[in-house]
């Protein structure tokens, strides 16, 4: 009996070393290949001696013109190569909105309000169950209009919320970076559900007196993954305009979107969405490279809207009683999984080390040609990234991704804790998560971060950042007062 486990252990140990050896071999294949070549050349040189080499050189009979032409060709090729490389895009700094304590919504208050607003007992019970299992904490915040029974959404209140969250974040960013408003060249704002005229970007231009030749864009209706779409747009613009910087604002305005009806599929956003905003400063200026925090490496966008099921998965519509709400279909998790797979298929080759890609390729070939029933190989993304920021869309999303990507609890800690402290802040949640990682002192120079966002459409967007300087704690941000309390254990079901 005691003997049986031992061979297993030793065999698994052997397997581990085999795996390690294989990974080192394949990842550094080129190095391994070039070593014998360089050794051979070196030996040959040593053997021949310097005199012979000089003699060989003379024999080529190169005159000045030949040398000049070769030098010219080399310089030309080098210039073309360097010019055609994309401009690096740096993330200089970012700031997240810290909700004030007078917007706080504890569980008990939310439940009490729901009971007073909703006449239908069943939907009250349903919302109670969602809240118990949601993974939210007692400090998430709703805008002042939602503290009324029933909520009191007006255009004025929505604008007030927008001004509060966006201007706080921008003021914070200006304070941290010393950015002059007149210096901003590109402005991209994304807010999915609130789209007034004039736009939120016009509101910002008005408040901060930005330049008249600013390039401003306002993205609305693009869902929770719009934050990365804005980053993508800013990056493309920074490729075209040299020596510029871009201010990206990601937010979601909650005030106008309270669902007052009883349809279960539409009640989820009421329970999960909370106030939040982030302001990000991107730049392609060389002088910012020294003080930038991150460099944008890749942005990969995947849109599954061509599939009808995916298109109708997150759908804003009116219910039978005429109340507008966002209906979430039952296939949401399955569709999210599929979108993620598509996204991974594109991003995998860009970021994974050679060893993982080869394994994946070989397993793919094996599945197609030899044995279709063989389990697909899930590449180990932990080798490609040190940190993961998964959109805190809900507990189910984080659980699903943790399972799919085989991540440990520490990797998804930033997402879970953001969901607990701030709720689902939609497109800005990725920035709160990044801020969590920095506040914990885990961000080192050279670390790679993967931000994954999901949104209506159905879209799955990824961004890969590389850290350029170690971030020292304590940092000033939304987590500064509570980071010492985290991580907290979030129970499966909270007793209300």
């Amino acid at each position: 009996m005691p003997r049986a486990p031992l061979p297993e252990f030793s065999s698994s140990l052997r397997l581990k070393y085999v795996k390690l050896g294989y990974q080192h071999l394949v990842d550094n294949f080129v190095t391994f290949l070039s070593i014998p070549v360089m050794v051979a050349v070196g030996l040959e040189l040593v053997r021949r001696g310097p005199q012979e080499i000089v003699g060989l050189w003379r024999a080529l009979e190169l005159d000045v013109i030949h040398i000049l032409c070769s030098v010219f060709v080399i310089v030309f090729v080098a210039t073309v190569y360097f010019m055609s490389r994309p401009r690096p895009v740096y993330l200089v700094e970012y700031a997240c909105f810290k909700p004030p304590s007078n917007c706080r919504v504890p569980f008990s208050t939310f439940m009490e309000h729901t009971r007073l607003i909703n006449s239908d007992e069943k939907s009250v019970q349903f919302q109670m169950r969602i809240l118990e299992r949601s993974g939210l904490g007692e400090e998430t915040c709703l805008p002042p209009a939602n503290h009324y029974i029933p909520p009191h959404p007006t255009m004025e209140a929505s604008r007030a919320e927008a001004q509060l969250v966006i201007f706080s974040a921008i003021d914070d960013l200006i304070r941290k970076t010393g950015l002059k408003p007149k210096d901003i060249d590109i402005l991209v704002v994304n807010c999915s559900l609130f789209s007034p005229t004039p736009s939120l970007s016009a509101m910002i231009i008005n408040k901060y007196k930005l330049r008249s030749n600013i390039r401003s864009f306002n993205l609305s209706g693009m869902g929770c993954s719009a934050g990365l779409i804005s980053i993508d747009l800013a990056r493309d613009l920074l490729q075209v305009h040299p020596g510029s910087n871009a201010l990206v604002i990601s937010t979601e305005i909650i005030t106008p979107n309270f669902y007052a009806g009883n349809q279960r599929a539409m009640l989820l956003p009421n329970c999960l969405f909370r106030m939040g905003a982030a302001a990000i400063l991107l730049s392609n200026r060389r002088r910012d490279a020294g003080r930038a925090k991150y460099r944008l490496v890749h942005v990969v966008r995947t849109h599954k809207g061509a599939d009808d099921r995916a298109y109708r998965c997150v759908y804003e519509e009116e219910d039978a009683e005429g109340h507008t709400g966002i209906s979430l279909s039952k296939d949401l998790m399955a569709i999210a999984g599929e979108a993620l797979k598509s996204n991974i298929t594109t991003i995998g080759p860009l970021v994974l080390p050679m060893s993982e890609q080869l394994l994946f390729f070989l397993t793919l070939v094996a599945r197609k040609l030899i044995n279709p029933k063989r389990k697909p190989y899930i590449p180990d993304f932990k080798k490609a990234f040190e940190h993961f920021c998964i959109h805190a869309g809900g507990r189910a999303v984080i659980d699903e991704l943790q399972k799919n990507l085989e991540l440990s609890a520490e990797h998804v800690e930033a997402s879970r804790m953001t969901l607990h402290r701030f709720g689902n802040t939609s497109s800005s949640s990725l920035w709160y998560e990044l801020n969590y990682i920095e506040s914990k002192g885990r961000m080192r120079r050279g670390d790679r971060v993967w931000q994954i966002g999901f949104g209506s459409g159905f879209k799955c967007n990824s961004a890969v950042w590389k850290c350029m300087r170690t971030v020292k704690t304590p940092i000033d941000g939304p987590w500064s007062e509570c980071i010492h309390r985290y991580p907290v254990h979030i129970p499966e079901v909270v007793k209300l």
Partner: protein
Amino acid sequence: MGVEQEKTVIYDHRISTVVPATVTGNAVLHELTNMDLIMKLHYLRAVYYFNQSEITDGVTIADLKNPMFLWLNICYPMAGRIRRAESGRPLIKCNDCGLRIIEARCRRTLGEWLDVESSSSRWRLLVPDKVLGPDLQFSPMVYMQFTRFKCGGMAIGYSWAHVLGDPMSATNCINLWGELFSGNPPPKTLQLNNHQKKAENAATHVKVSPKPIPVKQVELIGDGWLAPNTRKMATNSFRITETKLKKIQPEQLKQVPTFVIISALIWKCLAKIRKSGECKMATICGYLTLPKCSKILNNTLKTSIVRLDSSAANFGLLELATLICKQEAEASKSVEELADIENGKSDFVLYGANLTFVDMEGINLYGLELKGQKPVQVDYSIDGVGDEGAVLVLQGPQRTNETSSNQERIVMVILPEDEIRQLCELLTSEFGIAQDLKINHKNSVTNM
């Protein structure tokens, strides 16, 4: 005009909730003492009237709400909800649920409002008349209503469940909010005395003492914490000015407290009206001032019973007053022991079980200051009073150049409706008080 017609005078009600600024903690419980549980069927209702001024003009609802978040951090049981322990004993779970805020507007000016003679229950429209239950888990214990008058004046009304604290506690608490609103930092020595656990588990059956007790056990109908009345109760308030006080207080009674004299006066009048009733027993109620005001939320009532051999109408004013002073039979302890029976499941009424006279002179009603502005008038009442009725003797508005012993008193009577009219007639005819039912606010305006 009846109260019903007046309902449309107050319009544009908006309801919201205010919670503590920081998380109180997981499963923090505020234990209720025996005295708390005895008082649970009573509710305090107060309305503070503020004149239009620069201060009230510039105040928005956000300004009024913002200090409350810190305030509720300090007084966190106010934001909790009633739960029952496994034994069935009620307690407060401090789950940060919050207190309810109501905003409203009034079609009248403050002057017109205070002038209306027949709205003796005018304060009812400015304070929510809610009670705890039927859903105890979701019933706020404190409501506040902010009503804006047409002229710009403001009324701040609050409804306070007696189970949380007595009028002394409630007033101190609300005055603390006023301090925070005015920008003063909170005092450092505040604590909550939620460690006063109930007395040791009464394994033995407590003997009901043969002495008279000021409480009456009641049967509740349904789950709401409000005792039913057999007679329709109403309220009225009138002012006793200093000159009137001097008149009714002859030389021999100089050492007798003003409260006792007023109580004796009203008792005599009521005895005359209640010819068929007994009127031989009354409860005298007062509140203890704790040293250094360190403990905020508690029920520390001092109750005593006065028993007469015959109806109070047969006694002279001086005699009655002296008797009241002498017969201060301590009843508090036996009252507390009662609540231990069945672990808090029995329901009691204290105010109104006998005719109750409540000494609220020491309660600093006019201490609620909005950045230095004091209220021009305060209406105070208690709901859930039993059929025998209650009489509250309150501070009057303070004049700056007078000492507290000489200032006027406001008397709020909570009695069966038909008795009130007779009482007012009697007081006017015999003692010359209560003839000016119109509270003359114009004087107070000039003094502010």
